[in-house]
């Protein structure tokens, strides 16, 4: 059966009446072990990720305020802007952006089944503890000097071990549920084993890549990443996008061509990426920007691909949001790489704005979409109307403000280096939208805390597997 992972991985709690399950689903026709599903596993992961989001956003607000009111630095003595930055960036990446994907892996490997579920919270504690210790090391002036890979000293060992602990939990869950319905097809088993093998390399790769001796290809005209590097990292994101639905839901029986087309294009682009190599090449080379331009095909493909799957009704709002951000991210990302445009915006707030479009716009909407799908009915915590609009409109405002600042700065470096009225107004508005984003994220965290107090989410049940 092609792509049978989709049928092997259940997508929603059985009590969810919103989605009908087709009668030919293999698990309904086979003898099976049913175990108690523990939605708390996803609620805990959501809570941890939101806690880091709120904390990182609070630091973001502080950073924005420091740029506007430099005397604030004096309140923190040695904890100046430069030390807070890695804390802010890394918590957004390794806290907010990573933990929902951990929840996704919990779903794929059936960690939400007893007795494995009881170990999900300890693993989340380990992850968050490693992040907390990492934050302490960065704020106290210990860093590798590599952006997003600041792990150094003790924390450089600790965080990979935290990832390894997660991997061990996934492996334990795989073994425990080997005969379960999730593994009915050989393809599902093979997929999960290959996935686990790949995941095993992550902690080691993280440790190695934090080394000061390694550095990715450099675009000699900007000092930034090459077109090939950007194509590579975007393809990794696309790979995640293509895999996500298989772990979250099932595909609609009537639509298979979007999957075939998407995977074919993905493999073709991967070959193109391999062909480009990893040399230090300028963005002025046509091969670089034309190759990167090949990503434009994903603007229609990704929405079409996701439309081929069945989704929980609660996800609608955030699914539309992440697809909108995606449709904005890809063309603007490509445009910002073009000769002339990148030369103007490099090192400016324009690229800061685009990074925010990527992380706070696209990635955040995607992650929330994933968590809503995982939480099912509990996904209400993300569906408050005002927080949805406040977040997304604030991100949009931020991107526009930074684009204006970046345009000015590209023409006159003094615009940023020597604050004037225009710069200060833009930065004040940025601070304001930062505060709004913080409030929206705090609202989600408060609701996630409420969710954890609901009886169904308060404790992981001690029920053991039952053979029907």
């Amino acid at each position, binding site marked *: 059966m092609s792509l049978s992972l989709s049928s092997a991985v259940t997508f929603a709690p059985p009590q969810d009446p919103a989605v009908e399950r087709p009668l030919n689903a293999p698990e309904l026709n086979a003898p099976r072990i049913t175990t108690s599903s523990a939605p708390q596993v996803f609620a805990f992961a959501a809570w941890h990720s939101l806690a880091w989001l709120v904390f990182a956003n609070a630091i973001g607000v502080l950073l924005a305020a420091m740029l506007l009111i430099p005397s604030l630095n004096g309140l*923190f*003595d040695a904890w100046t802007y430069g030390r807070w930055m890695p804390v802010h960036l890394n918590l957004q990446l390794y806290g907010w952006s990573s933990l929902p994907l951990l929840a996704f892996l919990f779903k794929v490997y059936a960690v939400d089944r007893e007795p494995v579920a009881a170990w999900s919270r300890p*693993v989340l504690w380990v992850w968050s503890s490693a992040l907390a*210790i990492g934050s302490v090391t960065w704020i106290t002036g210990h860093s*590798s*000097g590599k952006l997003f890979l600041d792990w150094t000293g003790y924390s450089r060992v600790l965080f990979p*071990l935290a990832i390894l602990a997660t991997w061990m939990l996934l492996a334990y869950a795989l073994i425990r549920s080997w005969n379960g319905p999730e593994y009915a097809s050989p393809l599902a088993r093979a997929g999960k084993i290959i996935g686990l093998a790949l995941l095993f390399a992550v902690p080691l790769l993280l440790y190695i890549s934090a080394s000061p001796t390694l550095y990715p290809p450099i675009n000699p005209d900007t000092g930034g990443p090459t077109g090939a590097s950007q194509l590579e990292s975007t393809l990794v994101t696309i790979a995640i996008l293509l895999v996500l639905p298989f772990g979250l839901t099932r595909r609609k029986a009537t639509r298979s061509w979007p999957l075939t087309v998407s995977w074919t294009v993905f493999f073709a682009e991967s070959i193109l990426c391999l062909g480009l190599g990893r040399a230090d090449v300028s963005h002025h080379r046509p091969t670089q920007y034309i190759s990167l331009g090949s990503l434009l095909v994903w603007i229609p493909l990704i929405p079409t691909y996701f439309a081929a799957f069945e989704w929980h009704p609660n996800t609608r709002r955030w699914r539309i949001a992440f697809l909108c951000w995606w449709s904005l991210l890809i063309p603007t990302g490509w445009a910002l790489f073009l000769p002339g445009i990148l030369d103007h915006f*490099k090192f*400016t707030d324009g690229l800061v704005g685009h990074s925010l479009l990527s992380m706070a716009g696209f990635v955040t909407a995607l992650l929330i979409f994933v968590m809503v799908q995982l939480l099912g009915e509990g996904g209400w915590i993300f569906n408050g109307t005002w927080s949805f609009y406040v977040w997304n409109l604030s991100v949009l405002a931020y991107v526009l403000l930074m684009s204006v600042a970046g345009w000015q700065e590209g023409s006159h470096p003094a615009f940023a280096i020597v604050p004037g009225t225009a710069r200060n107004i833009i930065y004040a508005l940025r601070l304001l939208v930062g505060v709004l984003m913080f409030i929206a994220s705090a609202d989600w965290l408060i609701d996630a805390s409420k969710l954890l107090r609901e009886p169904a989410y308060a404790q992981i049940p001690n029920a053991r597997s039952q053979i029907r």
Partner: protein
Amino acid sequence: MPQSNQRVAGWRGVSLVAITYVYFLIFAQFAFLKRLTELSIADAHLKAVMAAMAFGGILFSLLTPRTNLLRSPRLRLQAGLALCAAAALLTLLPLVLPASIAVAFLIGSGLGILTVTLVTHLRSWLGTGSPLLKVGIGTGLGYLICNFPPLFTATPAAQALTAAALCLAAIAIASKTTPDTPPEGTPALQSTISFPQVLICFTALIWLDSAAFFIIQGTPALKAGTWEGTAHLWINGLLHLVAAVASAWLLRRRGLSSTLSLAFLALACACLLLLDPHCVPIASLFYPIGVSLYSVALVAYPSLLAPASSTGERGRKAGWIYAIGGWFGSAMGIGMGQNLGHIPPFFLLLAGALVLTPQIAALLRSRRRELIATAVVLLAALGIWRTVAALSPKPPVLTQVERGRQVYISEGCINCHSQYVRPNTADVLMWGPAQTIDDLRSERPPLIGNRRQGPDLSEVGSRRSPLWFKAHFYAPSQINHASFMPSYAYLFRSQPGTQNQGADLIAYLQSLQDQGVEHLLVERAWHPSAADFAGASAKHGSRLFTTYCATCHASGGQTRAAWRSSFRRLPPDLSVGPLQDLSAADSPDQRRDRLAQIVKFGIPGTDMAGHEYLSDRDVASLSLWLQQTIAQPLAPSTNPLSPGETR
């Protein structure tokens, strides 16, 4: 009664809590001590006075719930307030030692009666709606009022008068109780920890608070960093208010034990940070939070949370808490501050063990698996890290430049400064020349950065002198009034076990320079275009001079004054001269171009730095204004020297 009316009805309780705190904090703990200093009562005499106050406090805290005198809570509270007001007014008299002891005893007695009576019957004035929140607001307002700058900085007499006036107002406020007072019984928010445990926790917290308060009060440097200055006071007051409301929320949602644990953690952070004078600004954030967190509980526990079968039992519990926790703990804390001058870390550990034990025990019971897993991974990581370090070859001793590079990385300079001059762009003229990729890749790691909040630094050693770096790290906004870079003065402090990080960083930045002369030739060939000069404005140039130049080139310039003896050549006062880098033989246009070059690129071999990031129009404006206003260049032999200047 409608819910909104219930909430409003509690204003009497909120006011009474706030006034009691104001009296205790601004008068008994503060103004009275200052008054005693004015009366030349110090050392052993001061101890005797304070002992009398503590004795009065302990005695009446314990006696109040056990005596039948003045059975009406309202009358008893009013009597306590009247005693407090009288005592405050008496301090205005020129007291001698025995009288001071008597007044101190009166203050303690009044406070003993007031506090125990208030919390025993607080429900009568709070009403039923959100009583914890009302206690939080009352406490927070009390602290906010105390930090109100005009009151905080007032004379002891004014503070005593204010305290007395507030007590009189409280007598009027207490004249009525709120209707619908809830009956005595098992509280809905009953605390789960035992009364002796609560007593120990409060004693430890008040001990810590009093010791920290006394140490800050007695150390000018600490006092300056915590509660001196209007901004500090407002921040403290608002922090108190926010923390007090948060404490009420925590008490309702997480219970007494969690609230006291958080209070301890905040206070412990403050106490540890106070050990390092440079960390006082951070300590000043933690201290009010910790104090307000437990202060709300100090009122809320005996009045609302303590299990009590009768009003008498509630009063006795309140009496023990204020006698032992309040007066004894406070006296011990002050004694620790007086005798040791600091809070020993061992004592913090002991206090932590006492306060956190219930919380830790509960955590161990409910989160054993999580704690064990976390501990195992933390220890495993420690073992691996140590093993890898032991097996790795010993790292070579770093040179000063290498150490400076580490400082550059540690401080996160990369988040604001790039080290990459983009070839064939405006970067080259401003910050060039460009490096090769091979040069970059030889760095471990390359520090290219991805955002410029400040200038590129890849060749900064060519453009800035060591003195400029040092002055800039100490006070960036003094060098350049528009700068928003934070001060890095702390890098120049001597710290045990570390080199002078500031000197290391300067050595590193100095090493970032091109040895060739090609770029110098490019700089000397540059001048603003005719269009830039045509659009230049001398008025704008004047403003730019004030922002960028006056700090060195005006007679009263801050940088000029602060580093006068360190300049290689004292920057000339441009209105006087001498101007050694301008030639008297130059035509006006040549002179204008030369001025523009100096403004943009500085003068090599001197401490004069350029302002390469300014637009050509700005540079033209500045040079135009300079040309119109500065002294004429003269032959060096006829040019007088300023004091400290050499040719």
